[in-house]
């Protein structure tokens, strides 16, 4: 079976071919899911956002400009859908904050082990948990740039395209967001960086 190019897959998907669309989103599915997961901090909501985004993309494939990068367009729609969901349902964020300890443990189970010892592994999970909680306390636009740049590793150009902002704005927003995140982590635990350094 010949491997179809992105352009061919888009053309087929436009004509209503579901299989081609599935192949098209396969490449960006995991990254899109992780963006949604970091935004919404709930697996079920992240899956809902992902499905809604993909259906929006399928519906509006005709509006995709040929010169643009398909995956950047996809992530942009995922980000917008997550923002919409957060706006519509403030409860999502609250829910994640007031989750029980038991659920939090379940959540951190998603983090894969990079084979450290059991004690170090526990510390890593705790650290990740603290960072994610601190992330939730940022303003939405600050959280957005940290997720896209520092967690997902997108280039400034890609982020500026996704958020419809100039690169300069993105850079300054990222700097402010990082400083704010550091402050929040220190407010939570004054020794956060020192303890981490000692390990």
């Amino acid at each position, binding site marked *: 079976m010949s491997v179809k190019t992105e352009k061919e897959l888009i053309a087929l998907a436009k004509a209503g071919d579901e299989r081609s669309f599935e192949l098209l989103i396969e490449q960006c599915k995991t990254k899109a*899911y992780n963006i949604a997961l970091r935004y919404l901090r709930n697996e079920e909501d992240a899956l809902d956002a992902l499905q809604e985004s993909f*259906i929006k993309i399928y519906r509006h494939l005709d509006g995709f400009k040929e010169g643009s990068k398909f995956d950047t367009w996809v992530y942009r729609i995922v980000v917008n859908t997550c923002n919409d969901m957060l706006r519509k349902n403030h409860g999502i964020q609250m829910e994640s904050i007031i989750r029980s300890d038991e659920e939090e443990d379940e959540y951190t189970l998603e983090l894969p082990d990079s084979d450290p010892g059991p004690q170090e592994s526990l510390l890593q999970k705790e650290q990740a948990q603290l960072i994610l909680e601190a992330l939730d306390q940022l303003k939405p636009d600050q959280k957005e740039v940290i997720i896209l740049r520092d*967690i997902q590793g997108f280039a400034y150009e890609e982020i500026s395209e996704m958020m419809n902002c100039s690169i300069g704005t993105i850079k300054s927003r990222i700097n402010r967001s990082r400083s704010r995140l550091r402050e929040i982590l220190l407010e939570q635990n004054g020794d956060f*960086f020192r303890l981490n*350094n000692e390990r």
Partner: protein
Amino acid sequence: MNDEMKFTNHNNEDQEILQLLEMLSQLPEAPVPDEFDLRMRRALKEENAKRREEAAVKKTAVKNSIWKKWTAMAACLTIGFLSFQMIQGGVSSDMMESAVKNETADIGESAGPTVAMEAEIQKIADEPADELPLLQEEPVLISDIMDGTWTLEKSAETNYGAGMGIDGEMLQISRGQAASKSREAFMADCDQALVLLTEGIAEGDSRKLAEAMNYKNTLEYTEEEADHVLKLYNDLFTEEETSLDWKNISVTAWSRSHVYRLTDGIRGLMVVITDTPDGLKVVEPIMEHSEWLYEQIGGQDFTLVDVIYTPETEEIEFLVELNKRKKKETRSFVWKETESL
């Protein structure tokens, strides 16, 4: 000293941010749960089904608007042609003159020839049918208005084109053969039949509906047949409390066949009521083809979605949604002139 402290603090802050960036980049990537693929596939299928449905609805709306446009145009032409015929032939110049003379004498000069002519037309309509000028008992044909050659057979086709079925027998009506004694009596009968019809539909009363179908005629619609017709009407007028109204939109030249538009404000049906030698005949496509449609569907559970008439091909398309166990399926059944009823 202060500068040195500031520098050290700044240096610490940078170090901490670098540390933070490292921690953020190490946050592990979660895999997409396996169930998502299946969920997505289902959502895509639903989306495609929705697209198809929307396309079908759009197509139907376009067809309906074309039909409405043609019907309205046909009605206007009919009325125009009728008036023209009456002035040119039906009311001869002698009659016109005497009418003008007599009527202006009666109602005063200010009324003018138009009022006089109308009065004359009214007088003719009220006269016994045997004395009517021949031209007046012939129906008006839209197609023939176009090509100038109209026949009685074509007349029936044209009426059918307005959305109703009319049998050939109706064309044999001659003066004095009508069931209702006078034009007023016929109009009163039409009203009564329409009251029964609309009440039957609104109240879901098949007995009343059968009564409307059998009103003052020799036809024998059973309650079971009326039940079938009622189900189709109920499918079409989906509002919980259907309130139907009717409007007379056309009258044939001999005034023995009236076309009504029955509407709930959203959807409409064309009903033709004809005064035939066998009595009053109430004709409407759903009523006329209900048994044929039930035969085609063959006992499956269904909902009638729309009825589309195509004047060019004289076909009536019944859009039906078959309620199958797991999913609904939209089917189209087309009735053609050649179909045996």
